[in-house]
């Protein structure tokens, strides 16, 4: 078995008296699709924020390829190759789809700030590279038709895809998808599931996702981690998770039908 690419080690986050995450540990292997599930308010998003550097854990740490990334600034975490997309449809609203993707190539620019300002040869070649790569990503995600649409005019499904395009533009090694299927109908979800698979298969990106849509999670995940009341209660393959009594208990009364799909 290969070395884990991401290790979550005893991560705990307290907000005053409230414990959002309590001693959560698991590993993510390179090239796998791992889902984090759990009822509303279980602490999934808090966990994601800590991995991406937006929130510092109270104790515990997150290791990326063996070095600590928890507690450092988000832009530095992104630079290392761990990139988060957002739960809300977070995009640059008043830019076109193409502009959104181009600007997101920032991490790969080689020119200095002065170079940007003066329009140095390096800056210009950067821009040309980014435009080409942006078009690649747009084609990859099937967004050709809306390339020059203003992002604020897009429907839900396209917004998610655009969010993913923004994430991809940074060339991540690990991408954190926060509820990529939320608010989608069945067809859109299935298309998105296909996309996330291709992300891993064709681009070699390790995918970590938080999701409520159980059928989609069961279909897409290699492994699943289940969190309830801030604690990890189970970890395993989709089949193991479906059969796990603690997981069933956690969902019982609220969405007992959902877990059995």
């Amino acid at each position, binding site marked *: 078995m290969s070395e884990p690419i991401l290790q979550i080690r005893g991560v705990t986050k307290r907000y005053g008296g409230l414990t959002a995450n309590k001693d959560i540990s698991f590993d993510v292997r390179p090239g796998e699709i791992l889902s984090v599930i759990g009822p509303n308010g279980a602490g999934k998003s808090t966990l994601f924020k800590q991995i991406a550097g937006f929130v510092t854990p109270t104790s515990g740490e997150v290791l990326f390829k063996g070095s600590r990334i928890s507690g450092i600034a988000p*832009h530095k975490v*992104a630079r290392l190759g761990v990139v988060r997309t957002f739960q809300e449809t977070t995009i640059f609203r008043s830019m076109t789809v193409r502009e959104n993707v181009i*600007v997101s190539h920032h991490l790969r620019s080689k020119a200095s700030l002065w170079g940007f*300002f003066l329009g140095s040869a390096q800056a210009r070649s950067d821009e040309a590279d980014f435009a080409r790569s942006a078009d690649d990503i747009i084609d990859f995600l099937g967004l050709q038709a809306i390339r020059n649409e203003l992002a604020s005019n897009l429907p839900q499904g396209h917004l998610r895809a655009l969010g993913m395009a923004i994430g991809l533009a940074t060339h991540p090694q690990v991408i954190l998808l926060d509820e990529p299927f939320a608010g989608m109908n069945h067809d859109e979800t299935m298309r998105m599931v296909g996309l996330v698979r291709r992300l891993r298969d064709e681009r070699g990106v390790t995918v970590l996702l938080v999701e409520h849509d159980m059928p989609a999670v069961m279909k897409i995940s290699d492994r699943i981690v289940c969190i309830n009341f801030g604690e990890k209660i189970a970890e395993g393959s989709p089949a193991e998770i479906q059969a796990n009594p603690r997981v069933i208990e956690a969902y019982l009364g609220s969405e007992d039908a959902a877990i059995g799909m």
Partner: protein
Amino acid sequence: MTPSRLLGVGAFLLGVFVLVPLLIVLTGRWDFYYTLTSVALLSVGAAGVWLTFYIGRINIGQGAYALVGGYVSAILVTQAGFSFWATLPMAGLFSAAVSVAIGLPILRLRGVYFAMVTLVLTEVARLTALALPVTNGAKGITSIPLPGELSIFGLTVIPDFASLGNPKLAFYLMAAVLMVLTYLVLWRIVNSRLGHLCRSLQQNEELSASIGVNTAMLRVLAYAISSFFGGLAGAMFVAISQSIYPSSFVVTDSVNFMLYCFLGGLGYVFGPMLGTLLLYFGWDLLSVAREYQLLIYSGAMIALMLVLPNGVLSLLEKKGGGK
């Protein structure tokens, strides 16, 4: 650069540097020089405010940096014997340095909270100027000599202002050159990758950070550039009026800088320039209405915000024109 844009720039430069002086000579309205010089300098300050708007921050504190720049220039000229021309960039840089120190903590704030803090800055600057010994308190610094000669390798680039028959024209040209350079820099920033990153910041700071932008650094950089422009404008005003007092720039001025940007249009680089021109002249023209001046003025501002929330320049866009 497209031919039509080149033509536009040419026409603008011709208007500023040839037509305006020509018209003033023909009409004999020499007082317009002072007004237009003020417009040019105010629009330099407004350009800075506009840049902070561009990263998504409402800046109502430009007056503070104009005051800082003005005092730096005045003190260096009167007490250290510097040439005005040397103090001009120093005033800008000093203002920028001050803004970095202030910006580091306050740029974390967003929306109305940042605006509130900046609103206080002008008053802080005024009180500081009153209290410090070097600024000479409420008496201010007066009888500052006019800008001297500027020569490079013995070649006179700018003659001594005191020896000129018409310093008003010289000040106007100087302010206009400064304005043109400022907007050149601003235009270049906005149309380079730097501008795209600023826009990403304006629209979503968290997303911007997650694509790897050092948001804290970029915010401070934009604010420092903004304050640099403020400092330049302040230093130039001092050179023209040959004096500076703690009340040379007050909160009203800071608010005006912001209004110029709103009026011209926050989405357009040349918005603050047009906004300054319209608002400055609008106020003067309304003086015929006497006691109703402020009422009409503020009513018109409210109406404009309602009808043209994206500024006067958005009119061009509706007709299908470009930026």
